[in-house]
Protein backbone atom coordinates (compact mmCIF):
# COMPACT_ATOMS: atom_id res chain seq x y z
CA UNK A 1 0.00 0.00 0.00
CA UNK A 2 1.57 3.24 -1.10
CA UNK A 3 1.39 6.24 1.19
CA UNK A 4 0.23 9.31 -0.75
CA UNK A 5 1.33 12.93 -0.87
CA UNK A 6 -2.28 13.98 -0.50
CA UNK A 7 -2.46 12.51 2.99
CA UNK A 8 0.76 13.64 4.64
CA UNK A 9 1.95 16.81 6.29
CA UNK A 10 5.35 18.30 5.45
CA UNK A 11 6.66 17.50 8.93
CA UNK A 12 5.87 13.82 8.63
CA UNK A 13 7.01 13.64 5.01
CA UNK A 14 10.20 15.54 5.76
CA UNK A 15 11.07 13.44 8.80
CA UNK A 16 10.50 10.24 6.83
CA UNK A 17 12.56 11.60 3.94
CA UNK A 18 15.42 12.40 6.30
CA UNK A 19 15.24 8.94 7.83
CA UNK A 20 15.05 7.22 4.46
CA UNK A 21 17.89 9.30 3.00
CA UNK A 22 20.09 8.56 6.01
CA UNK A 23 19.41 4.84 5.75
CA UNK A 24 20.05 4.92 2.00
CA UNK A 25 23.36 6.75 2.44
CA UNK A 26 24.41 4.26 5.10
CA UNK A 27 23.37 1.34 2.88
CA UNK A 28 25.23 2.80 -0.09
CA UNK A 29 28.37 3.08 2.04
CA UNK A 30 27.98 -0.52 3.16
CA UNK A 31 27.54 -1.71 -0.42
CA UNK A 32 30.55 0.28 -1.53
CA UNK A 33 32.67 -1.17 1.26
CA UNK A 34 31.93 -4.63 -0.06
CA UNK A 35 34.09 -3.61 -3.03
CA UNK A 36 32.00 -5.70 -5.36
CA UNK A 37 31.26 -3.70 -8.50
CA UNK A 38 29.18 -6.59 -9.78
CA UNK A 39 26.57 -5.51 -7.25
CA UNK A 40 25.26 -2.39 -9.01
CA UNK A 41 24.33 -4.10 -12.30
CA UNK A 42 22.80 -6.97 -10.36
CA UNK A 43 20.75 -4.57 -8.23
CA UNK A 44 19.58 -2.80 -11.36
CA UNK A 45 18.36 -5.88 -13.15
CA UNK A 46 16.78 -7.30 -10.00
CA UNK A 47 14.90 -4.04 -9.51
CA UNK A 48 13.64 -4.32 -13.06
CA UNK A 49 12.80 -7.95 -12.31
CA UNK A 50 10.60 -6.94 -9.38
CA UNK A 51 8.70 -4.67 -11.73
CA UNK A 52 8.11 -7.37 -14.29
CA UNK A 53 7.26 -9.93 -11.62
CA UNK A 54 4.67 -7.51 -10.26
CA UNK A 55 3.01 -7.62 -13.65
CA UNK A 56 2.41 -11.36 -13.35
CA UNK A 57 -0.70 -11.85 -11.27
CA UNK A 58 -1.31 -15.07 -9.43
CA UNK A 59 -4.65 -16.49 -8.42
CA UNK A 60 -5.25 -16.33 -4.68
CA UNK A 61 -6.73 -19.70 -3.67
CA UNK A 62 -10.38 -19.81 -2.60
CA UNK A 63 -11.10 -16.13 -3.19
CA UNK A 64 -11.35 -15.73 -6.93
CA UNK A 65 -9.20 -12.65 -6.80
CA UNK A 66 -5.61 -12.24 -7.85
CA UNK A 67 -2.57 -10.54 -6.40
CA UNK A 68 1.01 -9.76 -7.20
CA UNK A 69 4.40 -9.97 -5.55
CA UNK A 70 5.64 -7.09 -3.40
CA UNK A 71 9.23 -8.22 -3.59
CA UNK A 72 10.84 -6.53 -0.58
CA UNK A 73 11.72 -9.68 1.30
CA UNK A 74 12.70 -11.48 -1.91
CA UNK A 75 15.21 -8.75 -2.74
CA UNK A 76 16.61 -8.86 0.78
CA UNK A 77 17.10 -12.62 0.50
CA UNK A 78 18.79 -12.36 -2.89
CA UNK A 79 20.91 -9.24 -2.38
CA UNK A 80 21.38 -8.83 1.35
CA UNK A 81 19.69 -6.04 3.32
CA UNK A 82 21.73 -3.00 2.26
CA UNK A 83 21.71 -3.53 -1.47
CA UNK A 84 18.06 -4.59 -1.27
CA UNK A 85 17.14 -1.40 0.57
CA UNK A 86 18.69 0.68 -2.21
CA UNK A 87 16.97 -1.36 -4.88
CA UNK A 88 13.57 -1.04 -3.21
CA UNK A 89 14.16 2.69 -2.91
CA UNK A 90 14.78 2.97 -6.64
CA UNK A 91 11.80 0.76 -7.50
CA UNK A 92 9.65 3.12 -5.42
CA UNK A 93 11.23 6.18 -7.04
CA UNK A 94 10.42 4.88 -10.51
CA UNK A 95 6.91 4.06 -9.38
CA UNK A 96 6.46 7.54 -7.95
CA UNK A 97 7.73 9.23 -11.11
CA UNK A 98 6.27 7.12 -13.87
CA UNK A 99 3.20 5.54 -12.38
CA UNK A 100 2.34 8.38 -10.02
CA UNK A 101 2.23 5.88 -7.15
CA UNK A 102 2.25 7.89 -3.96
CA UNK A 103 4.21 10.99 -4.90
CA UNK A 104 7.58 12.53 -4.26
CA UNK A 105 7.21 13.72 -0.68
CA UNK A 106 5.54 10.48 0.33
CA UNK A 107 8.50 8.62 -1.15
CA UNK A 108 10.31 8.86 2.19
CA UNK A 109 7.37 7.26 3.98
CA UNK A 110 7.07 4.57 1.32
CA UNK A 111 10.75 3.73 1.48
CA UNK A 112 10.49 3.30 5.24
CA UNK A 113 7.22 1.36 5.09
CA UNK A 114 8.17 -1.00 2.29
CA UNK A 115 11.98 -1.04 2.53
CA UNK A 116 13.05 -0.62 6.15
CA UNK A 117 10.87 -3.37 7.59
CA UNK A 118 11.59 -6.18 5.11
CA UNK A 119 15.31 -5.37 4.79
CA UNK A 120 16.36 -4.46 8.30
CA UNK A 121 13.82 -6.24 10.48
CA UNK A 122 12.15 -9.13 8.70
CA UNK A 123 15.26 -10.39 6.93
CA UNK A 124 17.99 -10.21 9.58
CA UNK A 125 15.82 -10.80 12.65
CA UNK A 126 13.27 -13.29 11.34
CA UNK A 127 14.08 -14.85 8.00
CA UNK A 128 17.78 -15.50 8.52
CA UNK A 129 17.49 -17.04 11.99
CA UNK A 130 14.67 -19.33 10.90
CA UNK A 131 15.76 -20.27 7.40
CA UNK A 132 19.48 -20.38 8.20
CA UNK A 133 21.97 -21.17 5.51
CA UNK A 134 20.51 -24.52 4.60
CA UNK A 135 18.05 -25.22 1.85
CA UNK A 136 15.48 -26.92 4.07
CA UNK A 137 12.05 -26.48 2.55
CA UNK A 138 10.11 -26.04 5.76
CA UNK A 139 12.54 -23.56 7.22
CA UNK A 140 12.60 -21.33 4.16
CA UNK A 141 8.81 -21.50 4.01
CA UNK A 142 8.38 -20.63 7.70
CA UNK A 143 10.96 -17.87 7.59
CA UNK A 144 9.53 -16.23 4.50
CA UNK A 145 5.98 -16.53 5.78
CA UNK A 146 6.70 -14.99 9.17
CA UNK A 147 9.08 -12.43 7.75
CA UNK A 148 6.64 -11.22 5.14
CA UNK A 149 3.76 -11.08 7.62
CA UNK A 150 5.76 -9.08 10.16
CA UNK A 151 7.16 -6.73 7.49
CA UNK A 152 3.73 -6.04 6.05
CA UNK A 153 2.05 -5.59 9.42
CA UNK A 154 4.73 -3.14 10.52
CA UNK A 155 4.45 -1.35 7.20
CA UNK A 156 0.69 -1.07 7.60
CA UNK A 157 1.15 0.16 11.16
CA UNK A 158 3.56 2.80 9.90
CA UNK A 159 1.07 3.91 7.23
CA UNK A 160 -1.56 4.39 9.92
CA UNK A 161 0.88 6.21 12.16
CA UNK A 162 1.98 8.53 9.37
CA UNK A 163 -1.58 9.24 8.29
CA UNK A 164 -2.85 10.06 11.77
CA UNK A 165 0.24 12.10 12.64
CA UNK A 166 -0.30 14.15 9.49
CA UNK A 167 -3.91 14.86 10.44
CA UNK A 168 -5.20 15.31 6.88
CA UNK A 169 -7.47 12.28 7.08
CA UNK A 170 -10.11 12.23 9.80
CA UNK A 171 -9.97 8.47 10.26
CA UNK A 172 -9.34 7.76 13.95
CA UNK A 173 -6.14 5.88 14.70
CA UNK A 174 -7.76 2.77 16.14
CA UNK A 175 -10.38 2.15 13.47
CA UNK A 176 -7.90 2.84 10.69
CA UNK A 177 -5.55 0.33 12.29
CA UNK A 178 -8.34 -2.23 12.57
CA UNK A 179 -9.07 -1.68 8.90
CA UNK A 180 -5.45 -2.01 7.74
CA UNK A 181 -4.01 -4.81 9.86
CA UNK A 182 -6.30 -7.71 8.81
CA UNK A 183 -5.87 -6.83 5.14
CA UNK A 184 -2.12 -6.75 5.47
CA UNK A 185 -2.08 -9.94 7.47
CA UNK A 186 -3.70 -11.65 4.49
CA UNK A 187 -1.41 -9.92 2.00
CA UNK A 188 1.59 -10.88 4.14
CA UNK A 189 0.66 -14.56 4.19
CA UNK A 190 0.32 -14.63 0.42
CA UNK A 191 3.51 -12.62 -0.05
CA UNK A 192 5.39 -15.03 2.22
CA UNK A 193 4.11 -18.09 0.36
CA UNK A 194 4.99 -16.64 -3.01
CA UNK A 195 8.43 -15.46 -1.87
CA UNK A 196 9.17 -18.91 -0.46
CA UNK A 197 8.13 -20.76 -3.60
CA UNK A 198 10.27 -18.51 -5.81
CA UNK A 199 13.27 -18.76 -3.48
CA UNK A 200 12.94 -22.53 -3.23
CA UNK A 201 12.71 -22.92 -6.98
CA UNK A 202 15.81 -20.81 -7.52
CA UNK A 203 17.79 -22.59 -4.79
CA UNK A 204 16.87 -25.95 -6.23
CA UNK A 205 18.00 -24.95 -9.69
CA UNK A 206 21.14 -23.13 -8.53
CA UNK A 207 22.17 -24.14 -5.03
CA UNK A 208 25.26 -21.94 -5.25
CA UNK A 209 23.06 -18.83 -5.13
CA UNK A 210 21.91 -19.73 -1.64
CA UNK A 211 25.47 -19.52 -0.39
CA UNK A 212 26.33 -16.45 -2.45
CA UNK A 213 23.60 -14.37 -0.86
CA UNK A 214 24.85 -14.93 2.67
CA UNK A 215 28.07 -12.94 2.74
CA UNK A 216 26.47 -9.55 2.66
CA UNK A 217 24.58 -9.33 5.93
CA UNK A 218 25.41 -6.55 8.33
CA UNK A 219 25.95 -7.28 11.97
CA UNK A 220 22.64 -7.63 13.73
CA UNK A 221 23.57 -5.52 16.72
CA UNK A 222 24.62 -2.45 14.73
CA UNK A 223 21.40 -2.67 12.79
CA UNK A 224 19.37 -2.92 15.97
CA UNK A 225 21.10 0.07 17.57
CA UNK A 226 20.71 2.18 14.43
CA UNK A 227 17.07 1.23 14.23
CA UNK A 228 16.42 2.05 17.86
CA UNK A 229 18.00 5.47 17.41
CA UNK A 230 16.17 6.14 14.17
CA UNK A 231 12.86 5.08 15.69
CA UNK A 232 13.23 7.18 18.83
CA UNK A 233 14.38 10.22 16.87
CA UNK A 234 11.66 9.99 14.27
CA UNK A 235 8.96 9.16 16.79
CA UNK A 236 9.91 11.92 19.17
CA UNK A 237 10.77 14.64 16.70
CA UNK A 238 8.06 13.75 14.27
CA UNK A 239 5.28 14.05 16.79
CA UNK A 240 6.81 17.16 18.23
CA UNK A 241 6.73 18.72 14.79
CA UNK A 242 3.33 17.23 14.11
CA UNK A 243 1.92 19.29 16.94
CA UNK A 244 4.27 22.17 16.18
CA UNK A 245 2.66 22.45 12.79
CA UNK A 246 -0.68 23.78 14.04
CA UNK A 247 1.26 26.59 15.70
CA UNK A 248 2.50 27.50 12.27
CA UNK A 249 -1.06 27.35 11.07
CA UNK A 250 -2.30 29.59 13.82
CA UNK A 251 0.42 31.97 12.81
CA UNK A 252 -0.66 32.03 9.21
CA UNK A 253 -4.33 32.27 10.14
CA UNK A 254 -3.49 35.15 12.45
CA UNK A 255 -1.73 36.79 9.55
CA UNK A 256 -4.63 36.43 7.20
CA UNK A 257 -7.10 37.48 9.86
CA UNK A 258 -5.14 40.67 10.42
CA UNK A 259 -5.91 41.93 6.97
CA UNK A 260 -9.15 43.89 7.02
CA UNK A 261 -10.96 42.31 4.10
CA UNK A 262 -10.92 38.90 5.66
CA UNK A 263 -12.78 39.91 8.77
CA UNK A 264 -15.48 41.56 6.70
CA UNK A 265 -17.60 38.58 5.63
CA UNK A 266 -18.55 38.18 9.26
CA UNK A 267 -19.49 34.78 10.63
CA UNK A 268 -18.19 32.75 7.70
CA UNK A 269 -14.46 33.19 7.71
CA UNK A 270 -14.13 34.02 11.35
CA UNK A 271 -16.10 31.02 12.46
CA UNK A 272 -14.07 28.97 10.04
CA UNK A 273 -10.72 29.96 11.46
CA UNK A 274 -12.03 29.37 14.97
CA UNK A 275 -13.08 25.89 13.94
CA UNK A 276 -9.75 25.22 12.36
CA UNK A 277 -7.91 26.30 15.45
CA UNK A 278 -10.09 24.16 17.62
CA UNK A 279 -9.58 21.20 15.35
CA UNK A 280 -5.92 21.42 14.69
CA UNK A 281 -4.38 22.60 17.91
CA UNK A 282 -5.47 19.64 19.91
CA UNK A 283 -4.99 16.81 17.44
CA UNK A 284 -7.41 14.74 19.52
CA UNK A 285 -6.42 11.44 17.97
CA UNK A 286 -2.81 11.68 18.85
CA UNK A 287 -2.37 13.61 22.06
CA UNK A 288 -3.73 12.51 25.38
CA UNK A 289 -7.49 12.67 25.51
CA UNK A 290 -7.89 14.80 28.62
CA UNK A 291 -6.13 17.85 27.23
CA UNK A 292 -8.50 20.80 27.45
CA UNK A 293 -8.68 23.61 24.88
CA UNK A 294 -7.27 26.08 27.39
CA UNK A 295 -3.96 24.28 27.61
CA UNK A 296 -0.97 26.06 26.23
CA UNK A 297 0.70 24.83 23.09
CA UNK A 298 3.69 23.66 25.09
CA UNK A 299 1.63 21.30 27.19
CA UNK A 300 -0.04 19.85 24.15
CA UNK A 301 3.31 19.37 22.56
CA UNK A 302 4.63 17.34 25.47
CA UNK A 303 1.52 15.23 25.33
CA UNK A 304 1.96 14.50 21.66
CA UNK A 305 5.62 13.75 22.03
CA UNK A 306 4.85 11.33 24.82
CA UNK A 307 2.18 9.70 22.67
CA UNK A 308 4.65 9.40 19.81
CA UNK A 309 7.30 7.90 22.02
CA UNK A 310 4.81 5.46 23.49
CA UNK A 311 3.92 4.40 19.94
CA UNK A 312 7.56 3.90 19.07
CA UNK A 313 8.12 2.00 22.27
CA UNK A 314 5.24 -0.34 21.53
CA UNK A 315 6.49 -0.97 18.01
CA UNK A 316 9.94 -1.77 19.29
CA UNK A 317 8.47 -3.98 21.97
CA UNK A 318 6.61 -6.00 19.36
CA UNK A 319 9.72 -6.23 17.18
CA UNK A 320 11.90 -7.11 20.16
CA UNK A 321 9.53 -9.80 21.38
CA UNK A 322 9.47 -11.35 17.94
CA UNK A 323 13.25 -11.28 17.79
CA UNK A 324 13.48 -12.88 21.23
CA UNK A 325 10.98 -15.56 20.35
CA UNK A 326 13.04 -16.61 17.37
CA UNK A 327 16.44 -16.22 18.95
CA UNK A 328 16.90 -19.66 20.54
CA UNK A 329 16.71 -21.30 17.15
CA UNK A 330 19.48 -19.17 15.85
CA UNK A 331 21.59 -19.98 18.89
CA UNK A 332 21.05 -23.69 18.50
CA UNK A 333 22.04 -23.56 14.86
CA UNK A 334 24.89 -21.18 15.45
CA UNK A 335 24.08 -19.67 12.08
CA UNK A 336 24.52 -16.02 12.94
CA UNK A 337 26.45 -13.97 10.44
Amino acid at each position, binding site marked *: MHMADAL*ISPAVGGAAWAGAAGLAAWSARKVRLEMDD*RKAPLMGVLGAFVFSAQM*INFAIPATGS*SGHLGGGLLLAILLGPHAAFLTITSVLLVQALFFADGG*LLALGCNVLNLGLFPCFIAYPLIYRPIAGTGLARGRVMAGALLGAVVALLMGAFAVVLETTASGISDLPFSSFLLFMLPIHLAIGIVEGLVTATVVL*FVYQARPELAVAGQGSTGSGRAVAVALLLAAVITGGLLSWFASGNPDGLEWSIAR*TADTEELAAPGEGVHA*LSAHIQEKTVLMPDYAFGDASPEESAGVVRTGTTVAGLVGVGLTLLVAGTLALVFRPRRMSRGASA
Partner: protein
Amino acid sequence: MAAIESALLQTGRLDTLARQDTAVHRIDPRAKVITTACFVLLVVSFDKYTVAAMIPFLVYPLALLTVGRVPPGFVLTRLALVSPFAVVIGVFNPLIDHEPMVRLGPVVITGGWLSFASILLRFLLTLSAALLLIATTGFNRVCLALERFRVPPVFVVQLLLLYRYLFVLAREAARVLRAYRLRAIRSRGVSLRVYGSLVGSLLLRTLDRGQRVYTAMGCRGFNGILHPSIPLRFRTVDAAFVFGWCAFFIVARLYPLPQHLGHAVLEFLS
Protein backbone atom coordinates in the same frame (compact mmCIF):
# COMPACT_ATOMS: atom_id res chain seq x y z
CA MET B 1 -0.59 -9.43 -20.65
CA ALA B 2 -2.41 -6.68 -22.47
CA ALA B 3 -1.95 -4.69 -19.28
CA ILE B 4 1.83 -5.17 -19.38
CA GLU B 5 2.04 -4.16 -22.98
CA SER B 6 -0.04 -1.03 -22.45
CA ALA B 7 1.93 -0.08 -19.34
CA LEU B 8 5.11 -0.35 -21.38
CA LEU B 9 3.59 1.67 -24.17
CA GLN B 10 2.59 4.41 -21.73
CA THR B 11 6.03 4.50 -20.13
CA GLY B 12 7.60 4.60 -23.56
CA ARG B 13 5.30 7.48 -24.37
CA LEU B 14 6.64 9.42 -21.39
CA ASP B 15 10.12 8.89 -22.82
CA THR B 16 9.00 10.17 -26.21
CA LEU B 17 7.51 13.26 -24.57
CA ALA B 18 10.73 13.81 -22.66
CA ARG B 19 12.74 13.83 -25.89
CA GLN B 20 10.93 16.92 -27.20
CA ASP B 21 12.81 20.17 -27.45
CA THR B 22 10.86 22.99 -25.83
CA ALA B 23 11.74 25.83 -23.49
CA VAL B 24 10.82 23.67 -20.48
CA HIS B 25 12.79 20.69 -21.75
CA ARG B 26 15.89 22.84 -22.12
CA ILE B 27 15.79 23.91 -18.44
CA ASP B 28 18.52 22.21 -16.42
CA PRO B 29 17.18 19.04 -14.72
CA ARG B 30 18.50 20.21 -11.36
CA ALA B 31 16.38 23.36 -11.60
CA LYS B 32 13.27 21.31 -12.33
CA VAL B 33 13.95 18.86 -9.52
CA ILE B 34 14.39 21.68 -7.00
CA THR B 35 11.29 23.51 -8.21
CA THR B 36 9.18 20.35 -8.11
CA ALA B 37 10.35 19.61 -4.57
CA CYS B 38 9.49 23.16 -3.47
CA PHE B 39 6.09 22.87 -5.15
CA VAL B 40 5.16 19.57 -3.50
CA LEU B 41 6.38 20.69 -0.08
CA LEU B 42 4.36 23.90 -0.14
CA VAL B 43 1.22 22.21 -1.48
CA VAL B 44 1.15 19.65 1.29
CA SER B 45 1.93 22.31 3.90
CA PHE B 46 -1.56 23.80 3.49
CA ASP B 47 -3.92 23.24 6.35
CA LYS B 48 -6.35 20.36 5.83
CA TYR B 49 -9.42 22.49 5.05
CA THR B 50 -7.77 24.63 2.38
CA VAL B 51 -9.27 24.45 -1.07
CA ALA B 52 -9.45 27.90 -2.60
CA ALA B 53 -5.96 29.10 -1.67
CA MET B 54 -4.50 26.00 -3.34
CA ILE B 55 -5.98 26.81 -6.75
CA PRO B 56 -3.17 29.20 -7.85
CA PHE B 57 -0.76 26.27 -7.61
CA LEU B 58 -2.50 24.79 -10.65
CA VAL B 59 -0.65 27.39 -12.69
CA TYR B 60 2.63 25.47 -12.47
CA PRO B 61 1.47 22.11 -13.90
CA LEU B 62 -0.63 23.96 -16.48
CA ALA B 63 2.37 25.99 -17.58
CA LEU B 64 4.56 22.89 -17.91
CA LEU B 65 1.74 21.16 -19.76
CA THR B 66 1.33 23.89 -22.35
CA VAL B 67 4.91 25.04 -22.80
CA GLY B 68 6.25 21.48 -22.61
CA ARG B 69 3.64 20.26 -25.14
CA VAL B 70 2.38 17.41 -22.98
CA PRO B 71 -1.16 16.32 -23.88
CA PRO B 72 -3.39 17.00 -20.82
CA GLY B 73 -5.45 13.89 -21.51
CA PHE B 74 -2.34 11.77 -21.10
CA VAL B 75 -1.60 13.15 -17.63
CA LEU B 76 -5.24 12.92 -16.53
CA THR B 77 -5.67 9.31 -17.62
CA ARG B 78 -2.48 8.34 -15.82
CA LEU B 79 -3.74 10.03 -12.66
CA ALA B 80 -7.05 8.23 -12.96
CA LEU B 81 -5.30 4.89 -13.26
CA VAL B 82 -3.22 5.41 -10.15
CA SER B 83 -3.90 3.23 -7.13
CA PRO B 84 -6.50 5.43 -5.44
CA PHE B 85 -5.27 5.01 -1.87
CA ALA B 86 -5.56 8.70 -1.03
CA VAL B 87 -9.07 8.93 -2.44
CA VAL B 88 -10.25 5.79 -0.66
CA ILE B 89 -8.96 7.08 2.66
CA GLY B 90 -10.21 10.59 2.00
CA VAL B 91 -13.78 9.42 1.38
CA PHE B 92 -14.11 8.76 5.09
CA ASN B 93 -13.64 12.43 5.98
CA PRO B 94 -17.18 13.52 4.98
CA LEU B 95 -18.57 10.58 6.96
CA ILE B 96 -16.67 11.44 10.12
CA ASP B 97 -16.47 15.22 10.20
CA HIS B 98 -19.95 16.78 10.23
CA GLU B 99 -18.91 20.19 11.52
CA PRO B 100 -20.58 22.85 9.34
CA MET B 101 -17.89 25.16 8.03
CA VAL B 102 -19.06 27.17 5.08
CA ARG B 103 -22.55 28.48 4.46
CA LEU B 104 -23.62 29.44 0.95
CA GLY B 105 -27.25 30.50 1.41
CA PRO B 106 -29.19 27.32 2.23
CA VAL B 107 -26.27 25.02 1.40
CA VAL B 108 -24.05 24.04 4.32
CA ILE B 109 -20.68 22.51 3.57
CA THR B 110 -19.23 20.39 6.36
CA GLY B 111 -15.57 20.24 7.28
CA GLY B 112 -15.42 16.67 6.03
CA TRP B 113 -16.38 17.61 2.49
CA LEU B 114 -14.01 20.53 2.58
CA SER B 115 -11.06 18.38 3.65
CA PHE B 116 -12.01 15.70 1.12
CA ALA B 117 -11.96 18.29 -1.66
CA SER B 118 -8.62 19.44 -0.33
CA ILE B 119 -7.26 15.87 -0.49
CA LEU B 120 -8.42 15.50 -4.10
CA LEU B 121 -6.75 18.76 -5.03
CA ARG B 122 -3.52 17.74 -3.30
CA PHE B 123 -3.65 14.43 -5.15
CA LEU B 124 -4.04 16.19 -8.49
CA LEU B 125 -1.31 18.76 -7.84
CA THR B 126 1.43 16.61 -6.34
CA LEU B 127 1.09 13.69 -8.74
CA SER B 128 0.81 15.80 -11.87
CA ALA B 129 3.95 17.65 -10.77
CA ALA B 130 5.84 14.35 -10.51
CA LEU B 131 4.59 13.10 -13.88
CA LEU B 132 5.38 16.39 -15.58
CA LEU B 133 8.88 16.41 -14.15
CA ILE B 134 9.55 13.14 -15.99
CA ALA B 135 7.61 14.12 -19.11
CA THR B 136 9.65 17.30 -19.51
CA THR B 137 13.02 16.01 -18.30
CA GLY B 138 13.43 12.30 -18.95
CA PHE B 139 14.64 9.72 -16.49
CA ASN B 140 18.32 9.77 -17.43
CA ARG B 141 18.56 13.48 -16.86
CA VAL B 142 16.76 13.25 -13.52
CA CYS B 143 19.33 10.62 -12.52
CA LEU B 144 22.07 12.94 -13.65
CA ALA B 145 20.63 15.66 -11.44
CA LEU B 146 20.58 13.21 -8.53
CA GLU B 147 24.23 12.41 -9.14
CA ARG B 148 25.09 16.11 -9.04
CA PHE B 149 23.17 16.39 -5.77
CA ARG B 150 25.74 13.98 -4.31
CA VAL B 151 23.50 10.95 -4.23
CA PRO B 152 25.85 7.93 -3.88
CA PRO B 153 27.02 6.64 -7.30
CA VAL B 154 26.03 3.05 -6.46
CA PHE B 155 22.47 4.19 -6.14
CA VAL B 156 22.45 6.24 -9.33
CA VAL B 157 24.12 3.50 -11.39
CA GLN B 158 21.65 0.83 -10.36
CA LEU B 159 18.76 3.27 -10.81
CA LEU B 160 19.82 3.91 -14.41
CA LEU B 161 20.25 0.20 -15.07
CA LEU B 162 16.92 -0.57 -13.47
CA TYR B 163 15.20 1.77 -15.86
CA ARG B 164 17.11 0.50 -18.87
CA TYR B 165 16.26 -3.14 -18.17
CA LEU B 166 12.71 -2.47 -17.13
CA PHE B 167 11.55 -2.71 -20.73
CA VAL B 168 13.60 -5.78 -21.57
CA LEU B 169 12.45 -7.72 -18.55
CA ALA B 170 8.84 -6.65 -18.80
CA ARG B 171 8.75 -7.93 -22.38
CA GLU B 172 10.24 -11.17 -21.19
CA ALA B 173 7.58 -11.40 -18.48
CA ALA B 174 4.92 -10.71 -21.09
CA ARG B 175 6.22 -13.56 -23.25
CA VAL B 176 6.28 -15.98 -20.32
CA LEU B 177 2.77 -14.98 -19.40
CA ARG B 178 1.52 -15.35 -22.95
CA ALA B 179 2.93 -18.86 -23.12
CA TYR B 180 1.20 -19.68 -19.85
CA ARG B 181 -2.12 -18.23 -20.96
CA LEU B 182 -2.10 -20.31 -24.12
CA ARG B 183 -1.81 -23.42 -22.00
CA ALA B 184 -4.19 -22.44 -19.20
CA ILE B 185 -7.01 -20.65 -20.89
CA ARG B 186 -9.57 -20.26 -18.16
CA SER B 187 -7.50 -19.13 -15.20
CA ARG B 188 -7.52 -15.48 -14.25
CA GLY B 189 -4.10 -15.47 -12.69
CA VAL B 190 -1.22 -17.90 -12.56
CA SER B 191 -2.00 -20.65 -10.09
CA LEU B 192 0.21 -20.59 -7.03
CA ARG B 193 1.59 -24.04 -7.77
CA VAL B 194 3.09 -22.88 -11.05
CA TYR B 195 3.97 -19.37 -9.92
CA GLY B 196 7.18 -20.36 -8.17
CA SER B 197 8.70 -22.01 -11.22
CA LEU B 198 7.32 -19.38 -13.59
CA VAL B 199 8.67 -16.37 -11.75
CA GLY B 200 11.67 -18.38 -10.54
CA SER B 201 12.82 -19.10 -14.07
CA LEU B 202 12.31 -15.46 -14.94
CA LEU B 203 14.50 -14.65 -11.96
CA LEU B 204 17.20 -17.10 -13.05
CA ARG B 205 17.29 -15.54 -16.47
CA THR B 206 17.49 -12.12 -14.84
CA LEU B 207 20.46 -13.18 -12.73
CA ASP B 208 22.22 -14.51 -15.83
CA ARG B 209 21.48 -11.29 -17.60
CA GLY B 210 22.91 -9.34 -14.67
CA GLN B 211 26.10 -11.36 -14.97
CA ARG B 212 26.30 -10.75 -18.73
CA VAL B 213 25.64 -7.04 -18.28
CA TYR B 214 28.38 -6.83 -15.70
CA THR B 215 30.85 -8.70 -17.91
CA ALA B 216 30.05 -6.50 -20.88
CA MET B 217 30.44 -3.38 -18.77
CA GLY B 218 33.67 -4.71 -17.30
CA CYS B 219 35.03 -5.19 -20.82
CA ARG B 220 34.43 -1.51 -21.42
CA GLY B 221 36.24 -0.46 -18.28
CA PHE B 222 33.37 -0.12 -15.79
CA ASN B 223 34.65 0.31 -12.24
CA GLY B 224 31.48 1.28 -10.41
CA ILE B 225 31.25 4.86 -11.63
CA LEU B 226 29.38 6.12 -14.67
CA HIS B 227 30.76 8.85 -16.85
CA PRO B 228 27.71 10.51 -18.36
CA SER B 229 28.16 12.15 -21.72
CA ILE B 230 25.38 14.71 -21.29
CA PRO B 231 26.88 18.06 -20.31
CA LEU B 232 24.97 19.98 -17.65
CA ARG B 233 25.17 23.73 -17.45
CA PHE B 234 23.27 25.75 -14.88
CA ARG B 235 22.51 28.96 -16.75
CA THR B 236 20.84 32.20 -15.68
CA VAL B 237 17.57 31.00 -17.21
CA ASP B 238 17.66 27.97 -14.94
CA ALA B 239 18.26 30.12 -11.87
CA ALA B 240 15.44 32.42 -12.96
CA PHE B 241 13.18 29.37 -13.39
CA VAL B 242 13.86 28.19 -9.85
CA PHE B 243 13.60 31.57 -8.16
CA GLY B 244 10.64 32.78 -10.18
CA TRP B 245 8.52 29.73 -9.51
CA CYS B 246 9.55 29.33 -5.89
CA ALA B 247 8.78 32.99 -5.19
CA PHE B 248 5.36 32.52 -6.76
CA PHE B 249 4.72 29.39 -4.69
CA ILE B 250 5.70 31.13 -1.47
CA VAL B 251 3.48 34.14 -2.18
CA ALA B 252 0.59 31.85 -3.09
CA ARG B 253 1.20 29.86 0.08
CA LEU B 254 1.22 32.90 2.38
CA TYR B 255 -1.59 34.92 0.84
CA PRO B 256 -4.89 33.39 -0.25
CA LEU B 257 -4.76 34.93 -3.73
CA PRO B 258 -8.24 33.87 -4.94
CA GLN B 259 -9.80 35.50 -1.87
CA HIS B 260 -7.93 38.73 -2.47
CA LEU B 261 -8.94 38.64 -6.10
CA GLY B 262 -12.59 38.04 -5.21
CA HIS B 263 -12.62 40.93 -2.77
CA ALA B 264 -10.95 43.22 -5.25
CA VAL B 265 -13.55 42.37 -7.88
CA LEU B 266 -16.43 42.81 -5.43
CA GLU B 267 -15.07 46.16 -4.28
CA PHE B 268 -14.68 47.24 -7.86
CA LEU B 269 -18.28 46.32 -8.61
CA SER B 270 -19.81 48.05 -5.59
